[in-house]
């Protein structure tokens, strides 16, 4: 089954107009040795069979998947209001192209303008772009932008940065040969401020802070901001935007660039993507920011209009001198985020933050009350926390898994020093009964 509308008669008419005998004549420019004799794939199937195929994959997945999950670690199982998917399922949104023709793209352009405004409001920053691929590449591009602001030899990444984010930053900075220095954490899981005081110097292009960090712990942004205030390095923060209805944003503490992963704002888990990165900075750095940006202007009749702007930073105009090679981004995911935030508003975002906070704290209290379980990092947290068992994390998770519960992420997978630690996330989708079930199941296997 393909989607071509051509009848035999159509093909004959068109070939006639071209003075050709057969469709294969169109491939004459391809030298004979390069012509493929046969494509080694099975025959096509009908839509009905395609749906059966997908359903069989779903059934097989359901057989082995946990029925209760407390996984987070950069991807979060949040509730998305029905209107979000209903709106982005409109063909006028999802089958449109990048809005290069403003006269017939005002819908997408206005959504992006709203998105940019919302990202500024959430982060406390002045300008934001139209979106990035995901949180980790947004952070990597933030580090590259810090180099454009002020070039130096090295960047400071916290040990508590999501290890996958760290790896992506490493990949992006290989080409420019930036040294990566790791800031240690203290007993409560926050960045070591004394170390930072010593090391955040002129040799450093940027200091990166993740909030909440990979251990789930909330960093003292006020103190970090105070240390960095009069110093050379850019202050770059990577945040979970869902926390920002409740937690003071980095923009309030002098951050230069704030990035993050927008998945928690209404996007499905989808095995890791598509998600959406966001990128916000201060006005003074605007022309060093990368990516698409929508601006407000007027049309020839003086009517308000929106258009892609500041294009002279971008690859299609600047080519090798561009701020980045980014072209297609994640607009439809940004559209979902915009609709999600419109649905929640400031009150809904504060409420969902509170539920995340209270349910995750209930889980932490329940687990910490069990014999043999401790909290290795006792800093404040939002919706994720680390707990330590007297046995290997992999063993505990495996045993709890037998009762259909995915209790968290084995931190040994990411850092061998933490092989007895588990990172557990509790969102608003987990009820207090679910939390009790988790605590009971862990108690059983200890």
């Amino acid at each position: 089954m393909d989607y071509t509308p051509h009848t035999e008669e159509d093909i004959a008419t068109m070939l006639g107009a071209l003075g050709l005998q057969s469709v294969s004549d169109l491939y004459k420019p391809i030298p004979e040795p390069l012509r493929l004799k046969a494509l080694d794939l099975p025959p096509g199937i009908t839509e009905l069979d395609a749906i059966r195929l997908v359903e069989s994959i779903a059934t097989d997945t359901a057989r082995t998947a946990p029925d209760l999950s407390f996984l987070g670690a950069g991807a979060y199982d949040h509730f998305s209001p029905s209107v979000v998917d209903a709106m982005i399922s409109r063909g006028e949104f999802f089958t449109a192209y990048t809005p290069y023709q403003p006269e017939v793209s005002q819908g997408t352009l206005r959504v992006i303008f709203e998105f940019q405004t919302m990202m500024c409001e959430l982060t406390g920053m002045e300008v934001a772009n139209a979106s990035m691929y995901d949180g980790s590449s947004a952070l990597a591009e933030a580090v590259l932008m810090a180099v454009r602001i002020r070039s130096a030899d090295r960047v400071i990444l916290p040990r508590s940065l999501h290890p996958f984010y760290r790896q992506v930053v490493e990949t992006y900075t290989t080409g420019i040969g930036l040294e990566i220095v790791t800031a240690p954490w203290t007993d409560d899981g926050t960045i070591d401020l004394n170390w930072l005081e010593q090391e955040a110097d002129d040799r450093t292009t940027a200091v990166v802070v993740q909030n909440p960090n990979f251990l789930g712990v909330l960093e003292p942004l006020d103190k970090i901001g105070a240390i960095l205030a009069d110093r050379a390095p850019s202050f770059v923060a990577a945040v979970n935007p869902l926390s920002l209805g409740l937690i003071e944003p980095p923009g309030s503490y002098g951050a230069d660039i704030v990035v993050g992963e927008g998945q928690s704002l209404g996007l499905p888990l989808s095995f890791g993507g598509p998600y959406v990165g966001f990128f916000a900075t201060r006005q003074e750095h605007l022309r060093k920011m990368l990516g698409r940006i929508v601006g407000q202007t007027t049309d020839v009749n003086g009517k308000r209009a929106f258009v892609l702007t500041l294009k002279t930073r971008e690859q299609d105009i600047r080519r090798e001198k561009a701020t980045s090679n980014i072209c297609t981004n994640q607009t439809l995911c940004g559209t979902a985020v915009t609709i999600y935030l419109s649905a929640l508003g400031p009150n809904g975002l504060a409420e969902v933050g509170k539920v995340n906070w209270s349910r995750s704290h209930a889980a932490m209290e329940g687990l910490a009350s069990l014999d043999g379980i401790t909290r290795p990092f006792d800093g404040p947290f939002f919706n994720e926390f680390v707990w330590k068992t007297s046995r290997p994390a992999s063993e505990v998770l495996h045993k709890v898994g037998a009762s259909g519960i995915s209790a968290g992420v084995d931190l040994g997978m990411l850092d061998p020093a933490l092989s007895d630690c588990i990172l557990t996330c509790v969102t608003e989708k987990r009820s207090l009964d679910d939390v009790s079930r988790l605590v009971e199941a862990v108690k059983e296997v200890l």
Partner: protein
Amino acid sequence: MSEKMLVFERSRPGRRCTTFAVDRLPDIPANLKRQSPPRLPEVSELELVRHYVGLSQLNFSIDTTFYPLGSCTMKYNPRVHEKAARVPQIANAHPMEPQNQQMLGMIWKMEQILKAVSGMDTFTFQPAAGAQGEFVGISMIAAYHRARGHDKKVVLIPDSAHGTNPATAAMCGYRVEEVKSTERGTVDVDDLRSKMSDEVAGLMLTNPNTFGVFEDEILEMAEIVHGGGGLLYYDGANLNAFLGQCRPGDMGFDVVHINLHKTFTTPHGGGGPGSGPVGVKDILKPYLPTPLVVKEGEDYRLDFDRPESIGKISTFWGNFGMVVRAFVYSKMLGAEGMRHTSEMAVLNANYVTRKLEDVFERPKAAQPMHEGVLSANGQKKASGVGALDVAKRLIDYGIHPPTIYFPLPKVCPEALLIEPTETESLEQLNEFIDVMRKIAAEALSDPDLLKNAPHDTPVRRVDEATAARKPVLRWRAE
């Protein structure tokens, strides 16, 4: 059309849509607690729906309009793909459950399909778009040379290339040198030979190229580049011409990216999400991003143990939801459907180009493949009407403009790059041809009609200069 408000302008304090039941008020430390709430809109659900439905109606889209946008492959986006990606077990699969056999299996099976289509040996699905795929590809070429102690400084790129190519090379620390194109629209092989040196890391090439022309001297070009110690990068933006017909892997390319949002019709979404899987020949396999999906016996797993890898490129495993859509598309098309798809794409482009070449210049003589370049150069000389004006006038007739001024004006003035795709019918093509011929006549009889177009759109031509000079990039209360 009436002025559509921004969602902020519909906001009234206290109005609610989504609510959550708060069970216990948290005790948030004072130094962490947000002092003043973000000024997000406060609207009811109906207002929200009317607002976003209203905004959607201001867009052209494939569902509503013919979109002959060259180098973008705006073909029909089948609804079954959307259904598949939203199946709960797929949409709810957590990436930190990385042993999920069914999800890994889908990636692995899609890899087998892309290998058959492209002639490459191994694929990664981490890149989120073509440009990120290019970054991965050129980073791997750099790693390959580093591992061999080669000191390479230059990437060769044809003058007709997409802007992401030179931007990518620069991101990876290379200097860009341009290779000229010929009158036929192909790379000038003599110029390529003269620019090949010990310093050249590789050549980035699109085929069919951005003129829509097949690079028929590709085997000789590959020999020149490989002979000089360089590698060949294939930009798969135009792969829609090749399905089941020929393969970049057989042409000498060492690394390719494929835009699933073009050839494999995952929706463009108003500018993403895309997906840019990258395939390599075995010589580059050690450098592929970590992790790779591998199959051992009947089991799939993520292989993180890749010491020579360029590293990680996506937070998790790439834009998986797009892979699901492309997988369903590929299964439904099968071998014959793929072949037919490319043939009809090429037939449509040739038909349109032929039917318009007496009224618009054909700047390059070679036969086009899946897209064709016309030029408003004649109109520009005769009445001052350029490609932009033709494009804007098409909007009045309810057709999305083709890609304009690309390839770049220095290689092709007043370019109109037209890619109808295979999903458009003969009647639609004929309507487009009639409209384009009418516009060519209007360009002579009433040039102002074109220069002032479009006339009946939600907004008319916009003041881009002021937008850039005095940027207003977010909404603020009056």
